[in-house]
């Protein structure tokens, strides 16, 4: 038995050494257990760090409150001393040490511990066995155990214990809470089932383009708690490209069927946040029907839903309404014109037979507003609703103003705000400010700079191929607008939560623009994002 172990260990180490000699660094996913909950891999972390330190993003980050607090903290100086002490023992400069220990592939694997909030973690990094031993000795480590023929070292200082092992040019390091290091050694040395050979891992990462510098995999990704992965590709000049894959399961496309999106070419450049999406009303309605079919009161609910939808389109049949719109829609948050309130604009593409339904919506809205206005006059505190039609660029716009109501929601912005509806040959446009709708009408007619033009000029990708969604955020230009609107639309609690997550306001100021794109396929959701930080 012992001899068999020896042969297996020797063979595994020899293979690893051969691969290393051949210039093929070990794939970290092949060294960690198949049951890993997450794996974060980094290619040349030392180089990545160097690039980050030289970036304008880092320079801007240094000016944030979070960075100032970090550097002013008591522990910061101690940590610097600790680092200098170890470098002295290693007899290395900092850059050389980083290159030797973090210059290759490294990874952090999370293993299930029974508590999803506190998984076990093991850090793996490429390092020659000689360098690894040098580190273990310099850190004051002592050999305390063996896994087959691999020594396990322990560094103990007060209540802080590290264990490390190295084999085949990979250093494994952990702060042990259980047998996590042995679980990794079981795979790295013992040849146990590895994450890299699992089908769900391959499905999540296999399609990601080569050349990533950071890749993160998780076995349970929302919304379906399915495997997913994100890869980062720093581009230089403060640009980062990201790609992700979320395993979605078969026949999940439905309403998310990709379409060619023309919305970005119709939205004005004044958009600080915009999204264009595929929109398939018939598929959505089918999904609603399928969901309600399983319920005892499904038929009744379906009838109510049908009445609700038709109520917005007086005189139109359900079939007419479903056939009138699609296959795309778009929405944007526009900067205010001449110091005015920012405006939301939504637009839905009309099909060839869509105009009657769109006009029905506009006329129906006018009628509802008129009725509400009349009823409002009879209240103790009358709610004035002003209704008017305005001609602009050959298009009749319906403008509904209710400053009293709007003031409750939008505060000072209420003066500039009015629900505005316009129908063109191709679009039903609904906006919260007449100015925003006018600007959109101009852009859709080919006048003025569109969002798509501005993004192309900035070197960004605007899809011409079918996609499920495409969006852009320009946080640095409209951080205040985005946050204020987000608070009004999503509720203060959500925005506070987002702020808690990542000092949002500061980080938003560091990002010039963020673009993302989603494309649903039969079994996987493909996504990309591009971040341009401040220059």
């Amino acid at each position, binding site marked *: 038995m012992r001899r068999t172990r020896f042969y297996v260990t020797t063979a595994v180490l020899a293979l690893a050494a051969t691969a290393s000699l051949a210039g093929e660094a070990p794939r970290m996913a092949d060294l960690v257990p198949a049951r890993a909950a*997450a794996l974060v891999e980094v290619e040349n972390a030392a180089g990545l*760090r160097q690039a980050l330190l030289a970036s304008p993003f880092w320079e801007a980050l240094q000016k944030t409150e*979070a*960075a100032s607090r*970090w550097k002013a903290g008591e522990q910061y100086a101690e940590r*610097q001393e*600790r680092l200098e*002490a*170890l470098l002295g*023992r290693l007899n290395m400069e900092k850059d050389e040490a980083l290159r030797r220990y*973090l210059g290759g592939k490294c990874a*952090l694997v*999370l293993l299930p511990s029974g508590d999803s909030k*506190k998984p*076990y*973690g*093991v850090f793996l990094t490429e390092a020659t066995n000689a360098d690894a031993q040098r580190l273990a000795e310099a*850190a*004051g480590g002592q050999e305390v155990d063996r896994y087959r023929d691999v020594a396990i070292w322990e*560094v103990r*200082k007060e209540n*802080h*214990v*590290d*264990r*490390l092992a190295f084999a085949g040019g990979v250093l494994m390091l*952990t*702060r*042990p*809470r*259980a*047998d996590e290091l*042995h679980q990794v050694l079981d795979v790295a040395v013992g040849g146990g089932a590895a994450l890299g050979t699992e089908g769900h891992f391959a499905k999540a990462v296999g399609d990601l383009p080569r050349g990533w510098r950071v890749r*993160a995999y*998780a076995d349970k*990704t*929302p*919304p379906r708690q399915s495997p*997913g*992965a*994100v890869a980062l590709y720093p581009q230089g000049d403060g640009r980062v490209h990201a790609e*992700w894959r*979320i395993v979605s399961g078969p026949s999940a496309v439905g309403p998310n069927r990709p379409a060619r999106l023309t919305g970005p070419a119709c939205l004005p450049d004044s958009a600080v946040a915009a*999204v264009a*999406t595929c929109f398939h009303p018939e598929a959505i309605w089918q999904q609603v029907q399928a969901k309600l079919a399983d319920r005892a009161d499904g038929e009744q609910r379906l009838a109510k839903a049908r009445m609700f939808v038709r109520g917005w389109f007086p005189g139109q049949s359900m079939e007419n309404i479903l056939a009138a719109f699609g296959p795309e829609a778009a*929405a944007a948050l526009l900067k205010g014109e001449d110091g005015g309130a920012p405006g*939301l604009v939504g637009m839905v593409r009309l099909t060839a037979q869509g105009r009657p339904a769109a006009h029905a919506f506009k006329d129906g809205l006018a009628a509802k507003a008129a009725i509400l206005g009349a009823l409002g006059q009879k209240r103790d505190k009358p709610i004035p609703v002003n209704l008017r039609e305005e001609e602009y660029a050959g298009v009749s716009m319906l403008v509904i103003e209710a400053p009293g109501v709007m003031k409750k*929601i939008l505060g000072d912005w209420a003066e500039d705000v009015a629900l505005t509806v316009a129908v063109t040959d191709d679009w039903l446009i609904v906006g919260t400010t007449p100015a925003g709708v006018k600007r959109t009408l101009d852009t859709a007619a080919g006048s003025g700079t569109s969002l798509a033009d501005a993004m192309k000029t900035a070197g960004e990708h605007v899809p011409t191929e079918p996609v499920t*969604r495409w*969006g852009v955020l320009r946080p640095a230009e409209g951080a205040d607008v985005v946050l204020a609107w987000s608070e*009004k639309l*999503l509720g203060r*609690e*959500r925005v506070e939560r987002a702020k*808690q*997550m*990542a000092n949002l306001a500061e980080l938003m100021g560091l990002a010039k623009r963020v673009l*993302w794109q*989603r494309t649903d396929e039969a079994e996987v959701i493909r*996504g990309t994002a591009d971040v341009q930080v401040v220059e």
Partner: protein
Amino acid sequence: MTRPYDPTESDLRDPMLERLGEGAEVPADRRRALVDAIAGAPTPLPRRRRRRGVWWIAAAAAAAAVVVGVALWPARPDPIPPTALLGDLLGPLPNLAPSEPAPAESEQRGLPTSGALDAVWQDLEGPLAIVVQAVEAPRAVFNEEPSAPAPAGGPDRKEN
């Protein structure tokens, strides 16, 4: 207490001359030369005394070696846990992620448009969850909390 007896050269020579005289015929000058050679050889010390001398030499050598070893042996360095160092290199990054679980989502929202925005949120919910997990991941290894390691080999380690 009697003093130990140390034989002299003449003590040895005379009995040997007598004994040789009883053996084979040997010329007188050759016999004398032989006896002189034997008797003139260094007298071996008693066995106990020789052993004690070797012990003292060995002990002295060992002591010297220990003194030299202790003098030259590098002092054991103050341990520096590598995980703490790597945690230092990450800087404030892990602290950007929330340390407490996110509060339960309130049912109270702003305008009904949040339903539409939820659809957009779905695009980024998955990848952001992965990124947040990746940012939080270093805490599993590089945190500053005291670690309580299991015995070598793990608590419920099974033999392979």
